[in-house]
């Protein structure tokens, strides 16, 4: 990969400082194109070979009133010359496109951090709108605390586009590309990718494409020529494992996992779903890939979505439904039917802040108990959770494996942080993907020469999948309790007790890999256990405390039901077990109940991922307590 930057020219006349990692946060109004700006910088960093992790943060309203605090949208990006685990706790650089963005984000910028502001938006009116009595840029405490760069981005952009014939308003709109150009210059980023991207994105409006490219270059040249930036920075490519990488978000990786599950099983995929933030992108993505034999059905509600998916599974397809917490609540009864009819089904829940409508665009892990127990009766459902954006691919394939082998609904618990966050993904070799082929029943299976739909595989306890259209195997299934074996309706008390236990035993017996403990020193007496998207912050916190000379072990659960077989033994090996969660202690509750372990639950529900620094403090405290 070439490290040339710009249009062949390296920044000149500035001091170049080498850094191992940088966190940049672009913040502006929701209409300012901050997500696109962040995305592009991410692609530049990826193309350059850095490791990276990103976290967008946007309001629930599509266009909250302009210039207001609720309307602030931001995109944080962490890139480094080594493998990193999180999008970063705090930005090193904050780009604030207006007063609201400054106000909403400045407290996260550490002392001495770089602040780049678009001064054009700092009018009296805009300042009052967000409650600034005086212009903060005139305030010495700001300039003394941070390295402040005041740039009239809108004015400069309009100036750069003067000769394009574009109206002022249209020209002004390209100021986010000016910001991107400036930052690209500061961090020696390759730029051809962005120019190519802009030309493709606006292929139908060549004048807009050109304007954006010009604005991008103007930003670059501004850095290069004005001398107001004395230092530029270099972050070398990361030494990642060998292979081909791409950048991917959690929702895309999850959708690809579903496509791959369809290909690897040889089954058509039917997605029945209803739009809901932050899960809708899975529908959007899958509906682009119909040529893989994927049918996407936008139903009238979540109940119909999961119903259609189950109906398709009954017909021999791989039925999938995708939703977020409120939708999962609606699907409960149908998932119960899938438990009873023992058909494969994947239910994707991209968790968001709850209860009720809660915080639609923010993240949370508070649907674990809903996934585990949110149905009537004893209704065991396997639960699988991805730990990072790219891990969604493997998690989706794993959910498909369990659903198909064990003929059961499977809950896949992603969350908002994973769904919208992105990171590099070591693209797997298609030849190495697991084989998920299934065999449908074709012959009578019972001693009496008839077909018993509930005669099980002795090993997996899965029942045969006999799809309509198979001669001689006509049978009826449904939600009523059925007699073991024949599947006929049965109200017999002993049979019900037997069947309840049998369904539980089937799920308990699902083969899942042992949980792996990360304890480099082998001397840890404290274990931190997490699940889902907290993998990054927990892992980063563990690294930090180890650097301080305190050993700590980290175990991260992909399988929440059933738990890995070695989990009990792992928990007992340590003096203390800490369980950080973005809920009020749901995994801790399960671990305590099942393993009688006195787990310390550390919880936070602010709609945002944990910061590595706070978990570092939590872990250090516990470790000190143990060694005292």
């Amino acid at each position: 990969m070439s490290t040339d930057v710009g249009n062949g020219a390296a920044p000149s006349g500035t001091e170049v400082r080498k850094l191992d990692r940088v966190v940049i946060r672009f913040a502006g109004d929701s209409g300012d194109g901050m997500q696109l700006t962040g995305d592009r910088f991410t692609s530049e960093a990826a193309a350059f070979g850095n490791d990276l992790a990103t976290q967008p943060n946007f309001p629930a309203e599509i266009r909250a009133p302009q210039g207001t605090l609720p309307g602030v949208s931001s995109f944080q990006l962490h890139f480094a010359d080594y493998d990193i685990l999180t999008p970063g706790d705090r930005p090193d650089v904050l780009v604030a496109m207006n007063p609201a963005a400054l106000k909403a984000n400045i407290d996260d910028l550490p002392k001495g951090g770089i602040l780049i502001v678009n001064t054009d938006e700092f009018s009296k009116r805009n300042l009052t709108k967000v409650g600034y009595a005086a212009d903060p840029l005139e305030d010495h405490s700001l300039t003394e605390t941070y390295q402040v760069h005041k740039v009239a981005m809108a004015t400069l952009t309009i100036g750069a586009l003067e000769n394009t014939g574009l109206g002022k308003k249209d020209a002004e709109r390209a100021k986010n590309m000016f910001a991107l150009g400036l930052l690209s210059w500061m961090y020696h980023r390759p730029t051809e990718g962005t120019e190519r991207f802009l030309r493709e994105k606006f292929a139908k409006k060549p004048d807009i494409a050109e304007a954006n490219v010009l604005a991008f270059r103007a930003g670059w040249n501004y850095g290069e020529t004005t001398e107001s930036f004395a230092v530029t920075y270099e972050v070398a490519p990361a030494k990642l494992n060998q292979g081909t990488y791409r950048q991917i978000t959690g929702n895309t990786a999850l959708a690809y996992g579903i496509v791959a599950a369809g290909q690897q099983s040889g089954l058509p995929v039917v997605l029945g779903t209803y739009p809901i933030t932050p899960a809708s992108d899975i529908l959007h993505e899958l509906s682009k890939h119909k040529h893989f034999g994927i049918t996407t059905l936008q139903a009238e509600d979540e109940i119909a979505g999961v119903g259609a998916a189950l109906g398709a599974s009954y017909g021999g397809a791989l039925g999938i439904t995708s939703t977020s917490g409120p939708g999962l609540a609606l699907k409960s009864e149908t998932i119960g039917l899938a438990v009873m009819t023992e058909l494969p089904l994947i239910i994707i829940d991209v968790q968001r802040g709850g209860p009720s409508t809660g915080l639609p665009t923010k993240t949370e892990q508070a649907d674990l108990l809903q996934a585990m127990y949110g149905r009537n009766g004893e209704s065991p459902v396997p639960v699988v959770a991805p730990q990072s954006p790219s891990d969604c691919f493997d998690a989706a394939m794993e959910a498909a494996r369990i659903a198909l082998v064990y003929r059961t609904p499977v809950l896949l618990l992603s969350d908002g942080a994973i769904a919208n966050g992105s990171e590099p993904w070591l693209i797997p070799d298609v030849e190495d993907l697991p084989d998920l082929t299934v065999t449908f029943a074709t012959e009578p299976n019972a001693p009496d020469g008839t077909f018993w739909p509930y005669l099980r595989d002795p090993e997996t306890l899965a029942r045969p999948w006999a799809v309509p259209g198979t001669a001689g195997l006509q049978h009826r299934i449904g939600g009523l309790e059925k007699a073991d074996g024949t599947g006929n309706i049965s109200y017999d008390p002993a049979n019900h007790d037997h069947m309840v236990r049998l369904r539980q035993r089937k799920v308990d017996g699902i083969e899942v890999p042992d949980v792996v403990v990360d304890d480099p020193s082998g001397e840890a007496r404290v274990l931190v256990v997490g699940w889902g998207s907290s993998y990054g912050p927990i892992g980063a916190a563990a690294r930090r405390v180890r650097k301080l000379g305190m050993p700590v072990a980290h175990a991260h659960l992909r399988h929440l039901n059933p738990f890995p077989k070695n989990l009990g033994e792992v928990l007992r090996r340590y003096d203390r077990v800490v369980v950080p969660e973005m809920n009020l202690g749901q995994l801790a509750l399960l671990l305590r109940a099942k393993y009688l372990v006195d787990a310390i639950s550390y919880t936070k529900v602010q709609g945002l991922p944990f910061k590595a620094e706070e978990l570092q403090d939590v872990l250090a405290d516990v470790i000190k307590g143990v060694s005292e």
Partner: protein
Amino acid sequence: MTATELGLPALGGLVGVPTADEPQKAKDYKSDQEVRWCPGCGDYVVLNAVQSFLPTLGLKRENIVFVSGIGCSSRFPYYMNTYGMHSIHGRAPAIATGLAVARPDLSVWVVTGDGDALSIGGNHLIHTLRRNVNLKILLFNNRIYGLTKGQYSPTSEEGKVTKSTPLGSLDHPFNPVSLALGAEATFVGRAVDSDRVGLTEVLRQAAEHRGSALVEIYQNCPIFNDGAFDVLKDEAEAARRIINVVHGQPITFGGGDYAVVREGFGLGVAKTADVSPDDIVVHDATDLNLSFALSRLSTQDLQHTVTGVFRNTARTTYDDAAREQVERAKAAKKPDLAGLLHGKDTWTVAG
């Protein structure tokens, strides 16, 4: 009538469903399960009618599926020696939609009740109808909740005294046929449980129709709403009340004594002798407005009850279109998983 008779492209409801090698009998469709409806329940009559009718379609039994919701009537699939799913309350149309989309080689039937289809499942019903999924929906309307022991339903008459409404119900009822037509169902029919011939004829047309077919069946519940349709079963009363419509034929009833005529924006009933033959409305099952007007002639008190096929018209079905989209995408682009996973922007880290 088939689509052909309407001069429309001949794409029957059963195209793609494999046919049986041998002639079938009604008993081939009886499962080994004991039928457990109350003695005298109208559901028996409908079950028998369906079991006698299906052999005439000559389809492979294993390619027929009955999907039901919850209610007395929804036990239906257990008694059929076909594939079947007794699902959950109100959701059968949704489940059947997924099945129909996934499997063009199946003849999929939904069995539902007035509570199942119009109360808890009302949303799924209207959306299934507007999408025109190739499903045959048999709505057993006994105007009561049978299985839960006799509460009023969305088709019960206003003021209905039941266990849950000792002072009389307050709800205004649905007219299921009007509702279905409002959702632009492409096929809507109605029959009375005891009228085997009429019911079979509606079923036949429904089966041949490609798309959603809603068949409302007036069904007696002798336990909780006995005699709800008795006036339609008394010969003399029936003659005065039942208006059976046939596509392309003038609408008369009562042995030809009465006729349906235009009245304002809708339809009315007149003595045939009082009107000129030209004024007698000829049924056109492709005319939505006429079908709807006919549905409004049927009153809750059964003063007049229209039976037969109100509407039968061709429109692309959702499942055909969904499959066509996938097929077109497949023809246009080879599935290349490695290509998809790589996308446009990759970088390589050397070892």
